[in-house]
C-alpha cells in the first residue's frame, strides 16, 4: 500500500513578499497579477491539482523553498500552462510533435505549439482534474499500459506513451522531429502518427549524425530546415522568412545568455543558494513568443534572488549542509532529486539541458545555415569522445563530486555510449561515475534498487570528500 502524503500549503507569511513581486505579462499582452497568482496557488491550484499539492514521501512534490519566490511563481506558470495551450490551439495554433531535446527555434519562428513525446500522456491526465496522488498514479499507469499495447517492446519508456495519439484523444496536427542522437526512438513518434487511423502528417529532418567534417553537413541540414520551415508555415499561416528566423535566433540567444549567467552564479556559490528543483528554473533556455517575456522575467527575478542569497550565504531549503554535488548525464535523464536531497545531495546540472544552454547560434548571415551549424556543433551531438570532453569540462565548472549517467530502456544510442562517455569523464574530470538503466516499465518498478545504487554512490563520494578534506588539512 502506498504511503499517504501530507497536504502542501503556501504559508501566509510569504504572501506580502509574493504580492510585492512582479506581475507576469505574456507575449500577447495579457497580464496576471501577483494577487491572481496567489489566489491560484492557495485556492484553485490545490483544488484542481491535489496530487501536486501533496508532500509525496517518494518524490517530494512542490519545492519546500517557499521563500524562493521566482520558484513559487513558476509553479503558477506551469500549472496554468495547459489552459493557455488549449486556448491557443483553439485559436488556430497548430500542435507539432518534436524530438525530445531538440532546439526549438524553427518551430517557434512558425508560431507552432511544440510538444515532446510525453505530451499525449500529460494531455490525457489533464482531462481529469481533482485527482488525488494515488488516483493520479493509477490513471498514469493505466494510460501507459494502454499506450504500450500497440508499440514495439524496444521503444523507450518516454516515447512509448506517445502512442496515445492512436486513441485520437490527443490533438497532434503534425509530427516533425529532427532525428538527432539525443533520441534513438524519434521514429516511433512518426510510426504512431502515420498509423492508418491517425494519418497525422509528418516530416522528418534527417540530421547528419556521422560526424564527418565538411560544410556539406550544415548545408544539407540547412536545406532541410528550410523545407521544415515551409511545412510549418503552411500549417500555421506564418511565413518563416529569413528575417523571422533571424529574430527568433536572436531571442533564444538572449534567453540562453541570461540562463547561463544564472546557472554559473549557482555553480560558483560557496553554499548552493537553491535546491535541485529550483535550480532547474535557472536553466530555462527555451520559450516561444507567448511565454518568452514570462521566462525572461522569471529568470531575471531568480537571478536577483540568487544574488541576494549569495551575499548572505543563504542555502536553498531542502538541502543538507554541504551536500554532495551530482552531475547527471544522458537523454531524458530524470533522477529523483528529492531522494537525492534526502540522502544529502544536490543535482548541479543535466548534460543534455546544459548542451542546449551553451548552444551558440550566430546572428549574422543566413539564419538557416546558422541554425544548421549550431545544431551540428551542439555539444550533445558531437562524436562521443568530444561530447564527453565537453561534459567533463562542465563537470569541473559545476564542481560536481560525481556523475550519474542515466538512460532509459530502449534508448539505444545513449546506452551504447554510456560507458565510454563516463570513462572519459572519469579520466578528464577526476570524479567517480555511476551508470543507471531505467527499466522498460519506468522508474516505479525498480525504485528501491535505483535508490540503493544512487545512495551507495553518494556514500562513496561523501567519503572521498572527507578524505580530501583530511588530506588538505594535513598538508596545512
Amino acid at each position: 500500500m502506498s504511503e499517504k502524503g501530507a497536504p502542501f500549503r503556501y504559508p501566509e507569511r510569504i504572501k506580502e513578499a509574493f504580492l510585492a513581486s512582479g506581475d507576469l505579462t505574456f507575449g500577447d499582452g495579457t497580464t496576471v497579477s501577483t494577487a491572481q497568482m496567489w489566489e491560484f496557488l492557495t485556492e484553485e491550484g490545490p483544488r484542481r491539482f491535489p496530487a501536486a499539492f501533496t508532500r509525496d514521501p517518494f518524490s517530494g512534490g512542490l519545492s519546500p523553498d517557499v521563500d524562493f519566490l521566482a520558484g513559487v511563481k513558476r509553479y503558477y506558470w506551469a500549472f496554468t500552462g495547459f489552459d493557455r495551450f488549449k486556448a491557443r490551439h483553439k485559436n488556430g495554433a497548430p500542435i507539432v510533435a518534436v524530438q525530445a531535446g531538440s532546439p526549438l527555434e524553427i518551430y517557434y519562428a512558425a508560431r507552432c505549439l511544440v510538444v515532446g513525446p510525453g505530451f499525449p500522456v500529460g494531455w490525457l491526465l489533464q482531462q481529469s482534474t481533482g485527482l488525488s496522488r494515488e488516483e493520479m498514479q493509477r490513471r498514469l499507469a493505466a494510460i501507459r499500459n494502454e499506450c504500450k499495447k500497440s508499440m514495439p517492446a524496444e521503444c523507450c519508456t518516454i516515447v512509448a506513451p506517445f502512442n496515445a495519439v492512436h486513441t485520437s484523444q490527443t490533438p497532434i496536427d503534425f509530427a516533425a522531429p529532427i532525428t538527432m542522437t539525443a533520441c534513438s526512438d524519434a521514429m516511433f513518434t512518426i510510426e504512431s502518427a502515420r498509423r492508418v487511423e491517425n494519418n497525422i502528417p509528418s516530416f522528418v529532418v534527417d540530421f547528419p549524425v556521422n560526424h564527418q567534417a565538411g560544410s556539406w553537413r550544415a548545408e544539407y541540414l540547412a536545406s532541410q530546415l528550410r523545407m521544415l520551415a515551409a511545412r510549418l508555415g503552411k500549417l500555421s499561416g506564418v511565413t518563416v522568412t529569413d528575417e523571422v528566423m533571424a529574430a527568433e535566433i536572436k531571442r533564444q540567444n538572449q534567453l540562453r545568455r541570461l540562463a547561463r549567467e544564472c546557472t554559473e552564479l549557482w555553480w560558483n556559490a560557496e553554499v548552493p543558494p537553491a535546491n535541485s528543483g529550483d535550480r532547474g528554473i535557472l536553466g530555462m533556455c527555451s520559450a516561444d513568443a507567448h511565454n518568452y517575456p514570462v521566462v525572461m522575467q522569471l529568470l531575471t527575478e531568480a537571478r536577483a534572488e540568487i544574488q541576494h542569497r549569495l551575499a548572505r550565504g543563504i542555502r536553498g531549503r531542502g538541502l543538507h549542509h554541504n551536500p554532495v554535488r551530482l552531475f547527471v548525464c544522458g537523454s531524458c535523464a530524470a533522477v529523483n532529486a528529492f531522494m537525492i536531497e534526502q540522502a544529502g545531495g544536490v543535482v548541479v546540472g543535466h548534460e543534455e539541458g546544459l548542451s542546449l544552454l551553451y548552444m551558440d547560434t550566430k546572428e549574422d548571415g543566413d539564419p538557416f545555415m546558422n541554425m544548421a551549424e549550431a545544431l551540428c556543433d551542439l555539444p550533445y551531438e558531437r562524436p562521443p569522445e568530444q561530447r564527453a570532453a565537453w561534459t567533463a569540462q562542465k563537470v569541473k565548472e559545476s564542481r560536481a563530486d560525481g556523475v550519474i549517467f542515466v538512460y532509459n530502456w530502449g534508448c539505444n544510442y545513449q546506452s551504447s555510449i554510456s560507458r565510454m562517455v563516463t570513462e572519459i569523464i572519469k579520466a578528464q574530470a577526476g570524479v567517480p561515475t555511476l551508470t543507471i538503466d531505467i527499466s522498460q516499465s519506468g522508474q516505479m518498478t525498480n525504485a528501491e534498487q535505483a535508490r540503493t545504487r544512487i545512495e551507495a554512490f553518494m556514500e562513496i563520494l561523501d567519503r572521498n570528500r572527507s578524505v580530501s578534506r583530511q588530506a588538505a588539512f594535513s598538508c596545512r
Partner: protein
Amino acid sequence: VATGYGRITAKFATKTITEITCHARGAHYLHPATRTIVDIGGQDCKVIRLDEDGNVADFAMNDKCAAGTGRFLEVIANVFKVPLEELGEMAGGDAPLVPINNTCTVFAETEIISLVARGECAESILKGVFTSIASRVAGIASRIGVNGDVFFSGGVAKNFGVVTALESVLNCPVFVPDFDPQLVGALGAAVLARELGARA
C-alpha cells in the same frame, strides 16, 4: 542505523545507510583482508571493491534480472522438488558438468527441464547451474576488477555448490564467514552505528 531495501521505512532509525556500505563494513569487521565482496541475495547480486579500511571504493550490481540471484536458485530447487538448503550438497560428487546456456531464469528453467527429460543427472545439471551463476557474477566483477581476498555474503553464500563454482570461475579462494552470511549487512550497520555513536 537502518539498512537494506525499505530502510527509509524504519522510522526508529537515526540514520539510513545502504547495504553496500554496510556489507563492506561487516565484511571488513569479520575478515579485515577483504578487498572484494560478492553479495548474492534473493533479488540482486553485487560486487563491491573495498579499500584497506573497509570503505567502498567501487561497486557493480545486477538488479534488473533474476539471473545470478537467489531467486534463480529457488526456481531451480522447485524444478528438482528439493528444499533450497539441500541444493548445494546435491552437486558434491564427481559427475561431469552440463553447461547451462541460457542466462534468463525463465529460459534456464525450460532448458533444465529439457536436460532432465534427456536423462542428465541432477548433479551434473546443478554444477552447470552454479557455474552459470558464478559466471554471471564474474561478468559483473570484471567491471570493477577483483583484487585481494574475496568475501562471499548473502543467502547464496550458504550454498556450497555456488561457493565452489565461484572459486573455480574467479580462480581464487572465496572466504565464507562462519557468521551467518545473510547478516553481514546487519553486522556492518551495527559497526557503523557504534562508530557514529562514538563520534557523537
